[in-house]
């Protein structure tokens, strides 16, 4: 019985792993840089800019990611004028990127605010430009400060990828569900649970490495 279960589960899980890790990687790669830009817009002196970004962040953090996925896939094409029928893959990436960018942006905003104003002033007196000051003086210090919070979100993202089932996408959790239904067994869920734990263990190691890389100064 258990060998039958595994024989069916392993190939499906490997296919599902592509979806799980794909959504995870693309979301991170796109969201993190985008979040820095959004954080700067949110902190802009321009009232309209900061209001618009504030509203975007409020909506993304104030509604479930599940609902956002459903809206972008099932609802967005019905919106007058701007509506567009996104493919399932497009809808998944858009929803995850929009959602995680909002969370990351708030983390970066807190990180940027925590930097002593003296760092800006010293840069200004030394003749550094605003953009150079941000990229070379402020941002490296921000990244050090926000690494623990970013790490938390990264771990949450791994688990959130399972929400793609709502659009009929086949990730590793979906593989477990299919096999479980065929054999009326619960064990596939246990195996897939272990897969999540392995992924998270690897990520934790990587995050620790990055954090300790920034330990060279205080």
């Amino acid at each position, binding site marked *: 019985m258990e060998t039958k279960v595994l024989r069916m589960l392993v190939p499906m899980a490997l296919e599902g792993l592509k979806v799980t890790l794909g959504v995870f990687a693309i979301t991170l790669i796109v969201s993190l840089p985008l979040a820095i830009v959004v954080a700067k817009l949110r902190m802009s002196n321009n009232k309209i800019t900061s209001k618009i970004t504030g509203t975007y962040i409020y909506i993304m953090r104030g509604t479930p990611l599940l609902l956002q996925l459903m809206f972008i896939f099932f609802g967005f094409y019905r919106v007058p004028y701007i509506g567009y029928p996104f493919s399932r893959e497009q809808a998944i990436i858009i929803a995850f990127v929009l959602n995680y960018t909002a969370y990351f942006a708030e983390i970066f905003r807190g990180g940027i605010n925590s930097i*002593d104003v*003296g*760092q800006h*002033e*010293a840069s*200004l*007196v*030394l*003749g*550094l*430009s605003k953009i*150079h000051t941000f990229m*070379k*003086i402020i941002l*490296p*210090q921000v990244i*050090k400060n926000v690494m623990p919070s970013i790490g938390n979100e990264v771990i949450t993202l791994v688990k959130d990828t399972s929400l793609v089932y709502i659009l009929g996408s086949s990730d590793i959790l979906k593989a477990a569900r299919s096999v479980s239904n065929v054999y009326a067994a619960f064990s596939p869920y246990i195996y897939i649970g272990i897969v999540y734990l392995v992924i998270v263990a690897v990520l934790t190691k990587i995050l620790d490495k990055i954090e300790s890389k920034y330990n*060279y*100064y*205080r």
Partner: protein
Amino acid sequence: MVLLVENLSKSFGNNEVFHDISFSVNIGEIVCIRGKSGEGKTTLLRCLTSLETADKGSIKINNMYLCKEDNNNIKYAQKNELQAIRQEIGLVFQNFNLFPHMNIMENLMEAPLFLKNDTRENIKSRAEELLKSLELEGKEDSYPFQLSGGQQQRVAIARACMLNPSVLCFDEPTSALDDQTRGQISKIIKYLSSEGIAIIIVTHDNAFADEIAHRIITMKDGKITIEEQ
């Protein structure tokens, strides 16, 4: 005359910090600005270094106007001129504001490299020279947190000097120092002045001011009085 301040006024809302003050500083001169806490000493330094904008009056540094009176309005220099003026006047902050994630050499080289003042090799050897004359040899690869307060202050001085300023301002340079480091900083300031740099020191440390200053400016109730030493 390397710095000329004329009829300068500055308020924060209804709080008038100083009104209509004028003074000048010559090449290599050491001027101390004294006054009780809250009299506006830091604000004056911040106006000189363009961290604050003045409301009225003019500031001329090395024959360039940072700001000037333009029929009852104050007019600040344009962006690229401002860049040049900023390089002429340096500031050593009360808490130094070194870049914590950069080692000492990187702290010194960051601005001149960005401003493309010289080749990397020349900038580096200038930094080494400065570190040597400020008794910071061997600290090139250290990070600010690994240095004592006095050493951090000297790094901040070296960092400001990398741009060859005509004027160097200090905000309360003795506030965080013990007696021995205090002696060291006054030696360094005298050395910089002998090199032709005009020095402006904000301090409420009267003994220090008496020892070091060529001229003392006292701020009280938004006005200044000047005494030659």
